[in-house]
């Protein structure tokens, strides 16, 4: 583990100020409630634009989690079995709208997002929080409770929006509200090295 003192603990909902203070390279531990949203929920939010009163959860200041969890149900209560991040690239075309329209302050995912999303984050005050892909069992242990679900019937368990109470959920800031992106940086460096290797 990294030096504990270097890790920043953040609580949901995030204020604009907190979101804007975070910088790329920082490790964070998240406490509070996060909301899963992947392809179908993003598509729905953008095409139907449900008003806040038409939704069971308030996304203002919220952290969204790109995740399609494995969930089991017993006597009407849900347990998260495995819940790592999914590839955020698929949500790119919806995210600038979701961030600015609903006031989302944090996106947890993996693999990073485009410069268009980074620009929306800079404008609105939002950060991208990179979790470890494939760490489904480890991250499920950080989820203490399923607080609610929306669109379960319509979209199924993997695609519904789940409200999850988390404690010390680990992530790295890889895109911040200044427009800095570790993903863009790694891509630039690797592009130079690739050119050297294939001598076009």
């Amino acid at each position: 583990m990294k030096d504990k003192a270097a890790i920043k603990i953040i609580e949901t909902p995030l204020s604009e100020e907190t979101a804007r203070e975070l910088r790329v390279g920082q490790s964070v531990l998240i406490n509070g409630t996060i909301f899963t949203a992947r392809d179908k929920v993003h598509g729905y939010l953008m095409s139907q634009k449900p008003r806040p009163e038409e939704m069971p959860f308030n996304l203002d200041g919220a952290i969204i989690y790109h995740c399609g969890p494995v969930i089991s149900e017993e006597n009407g209560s849900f347990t998260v079995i495995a819940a790592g991040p999914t590839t955020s690239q698929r949500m790119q075309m919806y995210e600038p709208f979701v961030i600015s329209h609903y006031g989302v302050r944090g996106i947890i995912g993996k693999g990073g997002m485009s410069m268009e999303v980074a620009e929306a984050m800079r404008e609105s005050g939002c950060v991208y929080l990179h979790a470890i892909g494939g760490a489904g069992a480890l991250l499920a242990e950080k989820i203490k409770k399923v607080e609610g679900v929306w669109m379960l019937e319509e979209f199924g368990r993997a695609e519904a929006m789940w409200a999850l109470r988390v404690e010390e959920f680990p992530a790295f800031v890889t895109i911040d509200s200044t427009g800095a992106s570790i993903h863009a940086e790694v891509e630039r460096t690797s592009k130079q090295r690739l050119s050297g290797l294939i001598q076009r």
Partner: protein
Amino acid sequence: MLRLRDGIKEIIRKTAVSLPRDIEEALKAAYESEPENSPSREALSQMLENARIAKGTLKPLCQDTGTPIFYVRVPRELSFAVVEQSIIEGVRLATESVPLRPNAVDVLTEKNTGDNTGLFFPEIYFEQSEQDTLIIDLSLKGAGSENAGTFYKLPDERLKAGRDLDGVRKCVLDAVYSIQGRACPPYTVGVGIAGTRLAASKLSRNSLMRKLGEWAADPMVMELEKRLLSEINSLGIGAMGLGGNCTALGVKINHAHRHTGSYFVDVSIACWANRRSRLVW
């Protein structure tokens, strides 16, 4: 065939909740090689911790429990149809009991079947075997890594890649560069070289089943595997694309004779959790 069905259910569970030993060892070595306090070292540490938790609690390593892909070698006295039925029932049982995430979606209605079975789902490939035992190799292939595969037709003008092994090398480097960290590196990179598209894909996908220590039998191909592994790792993409020295754990190349007029290269990607197992029955 009640027992075979249960054996298949158990091999699915084992594959979903534990890493192959060679992969776990390679992740440990990668962790040791990254500098203290680097994001890539922390990423690798979480992967190893995740593997310990999954094995201890018998929970899936990853929420994407994948497309189940079976490579089956069937002895003469056993019928393909009987084995196929046992596999499908084993997948249904495992979906409920492991549990697996239901991943089979009807492309016409967009409905999820809920039990990981459907048309060509799970994927099953049969071969007749001369031996007395039934051998079933299973891969649980996550969508993030499957989406990252790339297909090339040589020559490729954009890459200045000709119809030779150096052209193949350029394709593989381009494929890994293009996906960056989106498919959960460190990757196992599988390559198929052939004269038809189907053969290239099949060879590429099969190569991911080879253990990391098993290099290609042909010395020229082995040399290319080793060179590519080192060149891919020099790109600096690193674990989860956070920057670092370990982007791939292995490169596996399979090749076939090609038609004079065709030269296909298929690059398949497995995420760090290259979940594969063998059942001998």
